[in-house]
C-alpha cells in the first residue's frame, strides 16, 4: 500500500521473557484508526514503538514511510501523543504547559503562544487556562492532554485510552473532540479497549489480542449491516433448512436466527420462507454486527 500512514513488517517486542507484540504485519491508511484490544494486548507497546520510544525486538515499523528506529525525531516532529497515564505538571497553568508543549514540538515562541491559546479554546478550557493543572478535574486533565497532543498541528496524533476515567458526559465530549480532528486534517490513531468508542470515532480498525493482530481493515467491512434477525414462533429447524436451501447463511443466536445472503435481500428471503412454511413470527428486524462481535469472533471467545 503506497499511501500507508503506518506500516509494520514482522514487528515484535518482548519485555524480557514477556512477549508484548508478535509478528505484526500492518498497512494502515490515513484517516481515523482504531487500535482495539484488551488491557495487555500490546496497544501501548505498539504506540511507543511507532513513536520511537521503544525499539522493536524484531521486525520494522514505519510512520509516514520513516523508520521508527532510525528517524524517530522526524516522526516526532509530525505526530502528537496523548499518553494514557498522567503526564501533566501539576504546578503549572494549562496555558503555560501548552506553550511549553508547543515550543518542545518546535514551534517558535510567538506561534506557540497563539496555538496554545487556540487549542485551549478548542477543547473548552479557555476560562480555566490560567489555573494550575493540579486543581483540574479528570475531564479537564484529559482535555489538556488532548490539547498538548495537537498544539503543534501534527499530521497524526496517537491517543492512548483517551476516555479513561471519564464520566459519561466527559466521555461524550472527548469522543466529539476526537471526531472533529479528522476535519482538521489530522489523522488519528485511537487506542482503546472500549469498542463503542472506536465505532464512534474510527473508519479503520486494528484488533490486537495477546500481541497479535487478529483483524485489520475498514470498519465498514468488519461491521456487517446486512444481517436479518428473526425469532420464529416455532419450527426453527424447518425455517433454517429452507433458508439454507435458498442459499442463505444462518447462525443461531439464542432463540433467534441470524440470516445473511450474498445474492439476495436477506429480509425478502426470510419473509418468503416464513410465508411458504406458514410460520408465525415473534420478532423480525435488522441485526448489526458490532465491533464487539467481530472482536469476540476473532479472539475465539
Amino acid at each position: 500500500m503506497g499511501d500507508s500512514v503506518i506500516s509494520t513488517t514482522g514487528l515484535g517486542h518482548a519485555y524480557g521473557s514477556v512477549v508484548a507484540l508478535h509478528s505484526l504485519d500492518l498497512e494502515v491508511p490515513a484517516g481515523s484508526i482504531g487500535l482495539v484490544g484488551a488491557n495487555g494486548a500490546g496497544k501501548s507497546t505498539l504506540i511507543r514503538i511507532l513513536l520511537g520510544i521503544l525499539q522493536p525486538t524484531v521486525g520494522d515499523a514505519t510512520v509516514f514511510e520513516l523508520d521508527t528506529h532510525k528517524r524517530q525525531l522526524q516522526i516526532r516532529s509530525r505526530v502528537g501523543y496523548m499518553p494514557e497515564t498522567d503526564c501533566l505538571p501539576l504546578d503549572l497553568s494549562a496555558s503555560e504547559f501548552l506553550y511549553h508543549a508547543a515550543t518542545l514540538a518546535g514551534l517558535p515562541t510567538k506561534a506557540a503562544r497563539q496555538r496554545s491559546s487556540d487549542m485551549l479554546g478548542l477543547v473548552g478550557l479557555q476560562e480555566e487556562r490560567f489555573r494550575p493543572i493540579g486543581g483540574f478535574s479528570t475531564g479537564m486533565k484529559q482535555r489538556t492532554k488532548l490539547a498538548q497532543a495537537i498544539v503543534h498541528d501534527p499530521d497524526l496524533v496517537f491517543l492512548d485510552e483517551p476516555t479513561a476515567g471519564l464520566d459519561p458526559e466527559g466521555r461524550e465530549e472527548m469522543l466529539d473532540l476526537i471526531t472533529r480532528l479528522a476535519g482538521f486534517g489530522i489523522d488519528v490513531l485511537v487506542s482503546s479497549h472500549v469498542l463503542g468508542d472506536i465505532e464512534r470515532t474510527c473508519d479503520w480498525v486494528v484488533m490486537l489480542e495477546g500481541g497479535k493482530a487478529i483483524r485489520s481493515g475498514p470498519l465498514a467491512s468488519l461491521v456487517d449491516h446486512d444481517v436479518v434477525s428473526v425469532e420464529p414462533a416455532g419450527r426453527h429447524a424447518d425455517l433454517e433448512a429452507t433458508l439454507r436451501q435458498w442459499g442463505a447463511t444462518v447462525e443461531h443466536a439464542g432463540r433467534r436466527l441470524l440470516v445473511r445472503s450474498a445474492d439476495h435481500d436477506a429480509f425478502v428471503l426470510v419473509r418468503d420462507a416464513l410465508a411458504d412454511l406458514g410460520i408465525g413470527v415473534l420478532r423480525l428486524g435488522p441485526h448489526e454486527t458490532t465491533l464487539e462481535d467481530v472482536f469476540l469472533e476473532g479472539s475465539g471467545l
Partner: protein
Amino acid sequence: MTEPTGAVYDLGYVPYDGPRTGRRGAIQATVRDGVQRVLGIRRRPRKKILPWVLIALAITPAIVFVGFAFLSSNFSPDVESPFASHADYFTLVGTVVFLFVALAAPELLITDRTEGVLSIYSSRPLRADDYIWARAGGLVLVMLVFLLIPHALMYLGFAGLSSSGFADSLIDDLDKIPKILAAAAGYIAAYAPPALLIAAFAKRKAIAAGIFLAGIPILSGIGGALIEATDVPGHRYGGLLALAEHPSHVRDWIFGRGTGRDLTPALAGFDPWVSLAVILGVAVVSLGIVVFRYRRLM
C-alpha cells in the same frame, strides 16, 4: 435601529504552516523550562521563595562589600582585603550554590518523572541525551547567575571606586576574569553532576536534597577522619572523598594562593590538579550514569 459595526467570525481550527525549529527548538525549550522551574518563574509564589532568598544571599554581600569600600576612605583594590578578594567570595557563594543545587536538581528531574511529564518529552523531537544535557544546561545557567553576578558587581564596583579610574582599573584587572570563570566552572562541575545523579534515582525531592546536603559533607568528614588515622594503610587517599572541598582547593590554585588552608585534600598532601581530576572524574561518571538511566526511561 443601530447599524452593525462589527462581525464575529468562527475561525475554527487554523492549521499551522509556519517554521518549525525541530530538535534545536526542543532543547532550547527544555533549557528555558529548567531555568524557570528552578527559579519558580511562572510557578506559585511559594516556589519562588527559596531560590530568590538564596540569590539574595549570594549577591547581597557583594553589594555590601562594594558599599563598605565606598565608605572606606583608604580602600585600595590592589590590596588584599576581605572586601576585594574574589577568591574569598567563592567560599561564601560556594556554600549558597551548594544549597541551591541540592534543591534545584531534584526539581529539574524528579518532577518530570513522578508526574509523568517525561512521556511528553519522549514524544517530542528530543533524545534522552538531549533532555539530560538541556536540564543540566538550565541548572548551569542559574548556577552561573549565583557565581558570577556577585563577582561582576565587585569587579565593576571596585573599578568604579579605584583611584586609577574606572576604565584603567577594568583593564588592569582583566586577568581576574578568566580566573573567576575557571573557579566558577570548578564549583559547577563539582556540585551539579552528583546532585543530578541523586535526583535521577530518588523518588522524592526532599529525600534527594537531604541525601546531597548530608552525603557530601559526611563524605568530607569521613575523608578528614581517614587522613588523621595514620595507622590505616593508604589513609591519605581518604582526602579524595572530600568532594565539598575539592573546588576550593582548585580555586586556591587558580588564584595563585597558597594551598592547604585547612582543606582536606591539601592536608592529605594532594596537589590541586588531583582535586581537579577528582571533580572531573566524578562529573563524568555521574553524568554518564544519569544519561544511561534516562536512555532506559525515555
